[in-house]
């Protein structure tokens, strides 16, 4: 059975990179005794794929990954979420466990856009270059900073860091990182082709 899992990542867990996060979840599946399916062949691995990697230093209210469970196994949503949340570290929470029809495409290929909240002051939207604007579906200043929906996925992708870099006005690479470091960046949601959440 295909399952889509939604989780959040906050606080110092922002500093765990994507590959490390994947390995963390592989071990979590075992700790929680989830009947996850393994691939065939010489070095079997858990069937698990993520919608989109999250940059180091960013938090998220909505991350997604897909798994497959073993034939003949069944887990109720509540039990699965309880078991997984029981083995989560503070800062990572399982928010949803959704059974999907068998012909569902991977979240990675369905993903088209994502919402980001950038908290902090001093961002100048007028600095965004023309060629970047086509990948920004909406952007507005809020009382906390900036809120934007940008292209995200395997066909068209815009890295949120690139948008923030231009809005800070920083030039040199080293300055860009320092400028960006002043902001709290949170991925708020991810969307598929029909504008619905993943």
């Amino acid at each position, binding site marked *: 059975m295909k399952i889509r899992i939604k989780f959040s990542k906050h*606080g110092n867990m922002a500093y765990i990179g994507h590959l490390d996060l994947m390995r963390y979840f*592989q071990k979590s599946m075992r*700790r929680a005794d989830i009947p996850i399916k393994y691939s065939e062949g010489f070095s079997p691995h858990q069937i698990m794929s993520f919608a989109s990697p999250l940059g180091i230093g960013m938090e998220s209210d909505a991350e997604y990954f897909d798994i497959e469970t073993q034939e003949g196994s069944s887990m109720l949503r509540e039990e699965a979420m309880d078991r997984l949340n029981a083995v989560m570290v503070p800062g990572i929470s399982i928010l949803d466990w959704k059974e999907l029809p068998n012909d569902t495409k991977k979240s990675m290929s369905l993903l088209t856009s994502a919402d980001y909240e950038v908290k902090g002051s001093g961002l100048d939207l007028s600095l965004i270059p023309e060629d970047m604007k086509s990948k920004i579906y909406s952007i507005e200043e809020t009382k906390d900073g900036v809120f934007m929906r940008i292209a995200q996925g395997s066909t068209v992708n815009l890295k949120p860091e690139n948008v923030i870099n231009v809005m800070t006005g920083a030039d040199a690479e080293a300055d860009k990182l*320092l400028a960006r470091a002043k902001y709290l960046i949170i991925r708020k949601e991810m969307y598929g082709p029909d504008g619905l959440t993943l």
Partner: protein
Amino acid sequence: MNMNKTYLSNDILLQVEKPARYIGNEQNMCIKDPAQVDIRIAFCFPDVYEIGMSNIGMQIIYEMFNRRKDTYCERVFSPWVDLDKIMHERDIELFTLETQTPVHQMDMLAFTMGYELCYSNIMQVLDLSKIPFLSKDRTDDDPIVFGGGTCAYNPEPIADFFDFIYIGEAETKYDEVMDLYVSMKGKGRRAFLHEAAKIEGIYVPSLYEPDYYDDGRLKAFTPLYDDIPTTIKRQVVMDLDSVRFIDKPIVPFIKVTQDRVVLEIMRGCIRGCRFCQAGTIYRPLRERSVEYLKDYAVKMLDLTGAEEISLSSLSSSDYSKIQELLEFLIQYTKEKRINISLPSLRIDAFSLDVMNKVQDVKKSSLTFAAEAGTQRLRDVINKGITEEDIMKGSYDAFKGGWNKVKMYFMLGLPTETEDDRNGIGELCERIAENYYTIPKEERIGKVQISASSSFFVPKPFTPFQWAGMKTAAEYREMAAGVKDHIREQVNQRSIKYQWHDPEVSVLEGVFARGDRRISQVILTAYKNGALYDAWSDYFKPEVWDEAFAACGLSKEWYNRERDLDEMLPWDHIDISVSKEFLIREWNNAMNGTTTPNCREACSGCGARCLGGGVCFENKN
């Protein structure tokens, strides 16, 4: 950030490699309220996070301290070079992982020292924690600095940096030390340390005074008070089943060197190889019961979700129930899709069968620690492996599908000649030829032999503790000679040869058998940039050479051959293995006489007085 706080600011964490090294919050990390405890300990493995978190001693002691309700033990590791630079530039203090608290605010700072080349990192940790380097300069505002581990058996080179040193296995006396600490809070560090010195196994360097002859040799080593012991007794846990192992292994986020559950199956070794320090300082061999190990294996795998498990000991083939244990693990891990990483097993029918079951034969290699190229030299070092063992073992393995062999050797062993060194290439050649005696249809591809050699470093409490070392230049010549001789062999294209950096080995030699005066060299070298010496990319031999010169001390002098009646800097430590035994073994080595292992016959090393372990196996 907000929820789980970090000591370092966001911009620093984004600039450094692997920020996860510095945030803690791992699965199974111990979480306590610091306000509810009486003792706060910062516990350090003085190397980078990935190395320290792979050390099982670290995890055992971490849990041991945290089992006390009045104690919160947190971890601290050496910041990597990138963060080290930033911390020095911006005057940022070193902090613990669990609560992100500056180390200087803790009651105690403990070090576990597994190898001598970490000494400059100890300096770094003291420096960044704003703790005076020398014990004598610390006040009651500074944490008590203590340490233990393998390097504690000759702690003299770092003695000036430690308030106290624990000799031996941690599980015995730390409760007594901590109870004493709590009872003496407010009475000041000197009073506490003087009382601690009375506890068996505790060495307080400031209460002992070395005295030297004009030529630099140790003349005397005197306790400054009558009420403290003249010798410090090594602590040994005689019943390993009676102490806990690692109940809740911390699961690092980043990939660490040992990214697996490790089961410590026993301590000690029966083989008596004369170069090996672990073989004497962990006597006698003591096994854990197979039920204890099965229990821990299951629990540790459940609580971590690890995908691999391995066994740890000095010679796993000697574990009396190895067959039962491996059969259980193979069965259990197969069901759960967990890999078994096998330790170095003696190559025989049993181990080949096991390895076939758990390893991808095509990818794995067979390991032989021959250590010496000729039987003559193997007898001198009492390494019980014979030519026949190697030939038969490799032949059976080749028939079973293996075609990769790893050979470990040492250069610079006592009595070694050029013939012995040439024996390395010749032995590898014979193994290669052995491979080709197998019919072509049964072979897969060419044989690949990887030979590597380290340079022998004489260690305290071994029969070879009096041996001399050579200079780095001489070692380089030896290695070149071995390489040339390999190139002359018929199957030389099948033999790869690597050797260790001789400068590093020479320095290790000085630290291993050094005295208190070496502390000035370590401090000088650190102040001039020495750090991460165990890492070949960061080892700076010039900095160390300059430090020795500045302190007026000579590496060659410390690495010289010692007289049997010379007073040694570690003589004040009693490991329950007698010097007489070591001298007997040294003489046996000179005669090329071998000594049977502990299960074959007792050689009267002295460990019997501890009343347990292999000395009393099968005796009622």
